[in-house]
């Protein structure tokens, strides 16, 4: 018994989800393809491992649950305050709190499988070895004859692996992997090698870089099957009354509608480079500030094949399903029968002189 999707909020009219639009999206791996039911997913760190959202939407109608980033061992995370509300967004500084991969595989992933939903498992490590260790453990736990079905196929819960490279590389002076083309490529290549070849490996990129196309180029050369753009931007909020930073660790990741233009820009730049033949063409998953179907459509029109709904879910737990329905309505509005038809059309408009 799930709550009806697309709860109308603030008087907005829910679109008719019954009208047939093909919202599916295909990801490609070295030894197979993965078809997701819809090109709308949750975003890492904004859905736990799915269970907590179950009362508010039907997870099986999404492209997948993108899990909170999993690391090798249990992590306590950072002190509180971990959160600050900012204009049209928020800062978070959780510190990748989690129970570790063993607990995740014993308790969380089986629940997603039993619910009939798909999971995109987000992984991270403090060094390349930890990334590899997690990828291997995940692969061993999702074998063909195991209880979780055949990975990367219709029967398996594991739809893809998302590589969270926006964390410090302990082996390289604490520099964030995503900000260094060499480190980013090394991690992605190692995870790709350790992962079942039927399972796509997606690299999640940070917008806090000088040239995101250069980072995209390096992770694609390392074997990434797709890109997820973008992670949060680093920010600081100060409590003026106290005269001190709000967050316990001063800096936090900025997310929410405030960053949407940055996400659209990053997707635009990278997909423009793909269309120009400067990068191999792979699916891009757009994430950053999606609140409505129209927001999601901006990312899709800019070149994203799928989108993730993150921060807005905190305030509107039914949001991912609502966004899917609203995005379907935008596809219909454009006279199209499939989400795939909408991908990158804004580039065509520019090419054809169709912008102001």
């Amino acid at each position: 018994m799930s709550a009806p999707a697309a709860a109308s909020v603030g008087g907005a009219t829910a679109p008719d989800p019954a009208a047939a639009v093909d919202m599916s999206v295909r990801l490609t791996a070295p030894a197979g393809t993965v078809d997701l039911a819809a090109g709308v997913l949750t975003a890492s760190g904004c859905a736990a491992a799915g269970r907590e959202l179950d009362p508010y939407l039907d997870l099986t109608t999404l492209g997948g649950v993108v899990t909170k980033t999993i690391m090798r061992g249990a992590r306590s995370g950072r002190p509180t305050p971990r959160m600050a509300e900012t204009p049209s967004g928020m800062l978070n500084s959780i510190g990748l709190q989690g129970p570790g991969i063993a607990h995740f595989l014993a308790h969380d992933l089986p629940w997603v499988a039993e619910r009939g939903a798909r999971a995109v498992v987000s992984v991270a490590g403090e060094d390349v070895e930890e990334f590899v260790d997690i990828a291997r453990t995940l692969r061993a736990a999702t074998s063909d004859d195991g209880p979780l079905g055949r990975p990367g196929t219709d029967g398996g819960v594991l739809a893809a692996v998302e590589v969270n490279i926006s964390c410090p590389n302990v082996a390289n002076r604490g520099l964030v992997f995503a900000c260094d083309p060499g480190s980013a490529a090394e991690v992605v290549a190692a995870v790709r090698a350790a992962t079942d070849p039927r399972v796509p490996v997606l690299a999640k990129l940070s917008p806090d870089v000088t040239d995101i196309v250069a980072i995209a180029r390096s992770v694609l050369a390392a074997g990434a099957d797709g890109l997820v753009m973008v992670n949060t931007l680093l920010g600081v909020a100060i409590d003026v009354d106290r005269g001190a930073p709000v967050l316990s660790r001063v800096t936090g990741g900025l997310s929410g509608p405030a960053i949407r233009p940055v996400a659209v820009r990053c997707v635009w730049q990278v997909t423009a480079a793909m269309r120009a033949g400067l990068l191999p063409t792979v699916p891009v998953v757009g994430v950053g500030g999606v609140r409505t179907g129209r927001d999601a459509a901006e990312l899709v029109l800019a070149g994203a094949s799928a989108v993730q709904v993150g921060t807005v879910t905190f305030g509107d737990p039914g949001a991912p399903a609502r966004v899917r329905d609203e995005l379907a309505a935008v596809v219909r509005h454009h006279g199209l029968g499939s989400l795939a038809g909408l991908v990158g059309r804004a580039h065509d408009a520019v090419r054809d002189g169709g912008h102001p």
Partner: protein
Amino acid sequence: MSAPAGVLPAARPAQVTAPVVVADRLGGYAHLVIADPVLAQALPGQFVAVAVGDRQSSMLLRRAFSVHRADPAAGTLEVVVAAHGAGTAWIAGRRAGDELDVVGPLGTRFVLPPAGGRVVLVGGGYGSAPFAWTAQAAVAAGVRVDAVVGAGDADRLCDVDGVRAVVGAAGGQVLVTTDDGSAGEPGRVTDALARLLEEPVPTTVAACGPMAMLAAVARTAAAAQERTGAPVDVQVAVEEAMACGIGICMTCVLPVRGADGATRMVRACTDGPVIDAAAVRWDCVGAHGASVPADAVGAPEGGAA
């Protein structure tokens, strides 16, 4: 109505758009009555998370309120709102006929002792909002009730009359304290609580208020137990900043000892808000947030795995 703390309540939470049917004042606070059959299933100690503004609002995060009262027969839920910032001010400004986007009922509830037992309710500021209702449930269950209602000053006392009406009618004591002496007796809720705990009978204390007050209540109860030898079980409804209220954001955590003895940073929204005070690591809870105990599971310092 007894389930071990930490067990999800029977009522499955929902996200609803519900009308405000009454908007008035309760002392210095706004008081809203919201009509919705799912929200009306809430139990004492639980909370709801209310959205601010409409879909264009720049304030994305919900505001959490402990439930003042819920009436499944009438199909209503009531909250008491203190206007702290722009978001709570917007909610406090709703009028009858306005609609609110509410998620609930959420979190754990107070677990009352069995019939014949004793409960002492301790509320600080708007933390006493749930206690007239909690007292009603206790009286109906054959539990003896006393209460302490306190605040910084008279203006910030919440629902003293409501608590008095229920507890007083059942023959219990209601002690009122203010830090500045502007109402009731001057002093802290813990001064009054210590007197109520002089009687050597097993007692459950249910407390709601600022974290520093909850820590002091836990200390006071432990000292009383030491003095009289009668067990005092303290349940605190913690107040933590929350982004979502439903367990997905990991911002409202605090250090709590589990049944296995290991300390973890647990979510106030799902493992709480009502938590066994004896399990909370008060040594690591401060005025502006909680630190991670060095021996916590997965602590950077290398706690137990």
